[in-house]
């Protein structure tokens, strides 16, 4: 396993060009092309702003005003997380041709999925940044330092989960459908559309068990709330857990690797 893991570094070039291909192919043929990566989150933000300031004003506590922006801080990374997992669960089956007919390192496929979704996430950030500049005092430098750390933790965690899911789905096709429902539930079990402070005692304890909670809170504290980043202990702990998840995910993937060519 460690040997294979070390080999992963050699596939840098391959991963890079596959991510580029993924992004190019995604917008090939559309008039606006890459701009969709900006426009999609922008439209999403406008819709939420409209709904929560015009249609349903005042249903949320004052502290998370402007609410659309608060939500956006959570939804952007959540979209990265959830679409990575949903796509990863199908990626080996969709890429069956490669696995069956070419000597191809299969783990590259889920990794490419996570990375190309990360690029979409990163492309959405300028929109978020523009609104942040408009609504709040500029970010402090310590917050700027912490931001890439959160992204990195999320990357490691998502990759680990994507590896497990992609490998298991080859054997159990049900996972695709189960996952779609789990992700919806997971979304509401994460403080994205509501602040953590609204959760009651027992609920809060449960939310704390959800790893994505700490990512969401970290993003919110860094981007949305003024003041220093207080959630860093949780974040670092999650970082350790994520590395564990990644290693476990890679282990499972590696164990099932030989079966892919026959099962996809």
């Amino acid at each position, binding site marked *: 396993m460690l040997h294979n893991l070390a080999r992963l570094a050699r596939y840098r*070039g*391959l991963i890079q*060009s*596959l991510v580029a*291909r993924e992004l*190019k*192919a995604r917008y*090939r*043929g559309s008039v606006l092309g890459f701009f969709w990566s900006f426009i999609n989150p922008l439209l999403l933000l406008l819709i939420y702003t409209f709904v929560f300031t015009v249609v349903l004003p005042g249903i949320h506590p004052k502290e998370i005003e402007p609410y659309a922006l608060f939500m956006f801080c959570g939804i952007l990374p959540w979209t990265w997380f959830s679409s990575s997992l949903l796509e990863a669960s199908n990626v080996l089956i969709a890429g069956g*041709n*490669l*696995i*069956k*007919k*070419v*000597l*191809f390192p299969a783990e590259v496929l889920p990794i490419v999925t996570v990375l190309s979704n990360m690029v979409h996430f990163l492309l959405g950030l300028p929109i978020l940044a523009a609104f942040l500049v408009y609504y709040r005092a500029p970010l402090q430098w310590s917050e700027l330092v912490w931001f890439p750390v959160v992204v990195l933790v999320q990357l490691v965690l998502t990759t680990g989960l994507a590896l497990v899911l992609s490998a298991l789905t080859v*054997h*159990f*096709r*049900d*996972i695709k459908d*189960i996952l779609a429902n789990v992700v919806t539930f997971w979304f509401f079990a994460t403080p994205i559309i509501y602040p953590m402070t609204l959760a009651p005692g027992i609920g809060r304890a449960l939310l704390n068990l959800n790893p994505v909670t700490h990512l969401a809170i970290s993003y919110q504290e860094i981007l949305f709330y003024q003041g220093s980043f207080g959630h860093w202990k949780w974040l670092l702990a999650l970082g350790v857990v994520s590395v564990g998840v990644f290693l476990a995910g890679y282990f499972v993937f590696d164990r099932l690797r*030989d079966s892919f*060519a*026959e099962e996809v």
Partner: protein
Amino acid sequence: MAPQSAIEVSHVTKYYRRYSQRRQFSTLKSALLSRTVVRNLAPDQSFLALSDVSFSVPAGATYGVIGRNGSGKSTALKVVAGITKPNAGTVRVNGRVSALIELGAGFHPEISGRENVFINGIMLGLSKREVSKRFDEIVEFAELRDFIDAPVKTYSSGMYMRLGFAVAIHVDPDVLLVDEVLAVGDQGFTHKCLDKFAEFRRRGKTILLVTHSLDLVERFCDEALWLDAGTARVSGDPRRVVGEYLTAVERGEERQLAATNARALEAAGRAAGPAGGPGADVPPPGTQGPRDGFQAPAGRWGSREVEITGVRLIGGDDHASHLFHTGAPVTIRIDVRAAAPVDDFAFGIAIFNAEGVCCYGTNTAIEELTSDRFQGAGSVSFVVESLDLTEGTYTLDVAAHRRDGYPYDYHRQLHTFQVRSRTKDVGIYRPRHRWEFSPEIRLRPSAP
């Protein structure tokens, strides 16, 4: 070069899981219920694709693998390529491998040929710089200069394959694995591929070729292996391997033809009812002559005053067979029996090709052999010195009838035989011939 082998396959066994089994689970629920997430392969749940197969390919050799469909050829190739792992045994390959199993397997339809060349090259183990260096050569080889910036989805299947082949071949592997991909593109491109293989050989690269083109194996390969139902049957000199393979294939077909003929005869016998007076299958009056019978469907009819009890095709070796080579002697032996004496009788045969065209038909009356008397059991032989038919499947009509055509026993297309030929000439008749050339026209001596 050190006399080492490029590919070393020893005692490789490979199972595939059977999916028709009811006990197999394919859902998470059933896996959880049966508590065996890791499935074990009991013999009755698996299909043995390769069974204790060993072979080694010396570096620089071209090695052909032949066999029927499903004999494990492609599995062997995949095992060598490292795409699937064997359940037992070891595979060792020295040097960079490129597998031409499915051409253009990694192409993405939406992006241009140019980008696909790069990504495919990188997938096959080249660096970006290496691909750039070979890019022009690849495009040149694929003959796609004008289309290289168009999305691959707009390519014709031939263009797609050509590009896939061009990339794979330019990876410059030490060991090239080829699975029946020469059937891509037009004649010109096929020649180009063969030239490329020849160049590979000259440069001392190793080629493992899985193919149904026996001709290619004989011409190209230094050694060959015949896989039969997952086991290695014969290996060694390509001519010998191909010869033995062909013999076995013919034997198999022979068995099948014999079974088919037996079934046809039995079915016709049942339909015609008990031997005796004209059965229900007698065609309407006026269509009783064998010439009109040529239009009739397969079957058997007649009054059975003279009964055909057996029809055998006998080859040059005096054995009954259903498979003959062009130019070989054949005897059609018809066993007949007449319970009561008859004085008006004639025997006929007709040969039809697969399209139903009558290649030849005759009878003793046409040939003015006048009947006198026959009673008891006897046999009639139609002796052909040289079966000058082209390759194909033929059916045979045999009949015993009166000279005016009234059928005693008419077998319509109940007997099938095959003709094999090393030359792929066409038509329905192969006149005995030779070619002659005036001295100005020189030919290369043909291969021994």
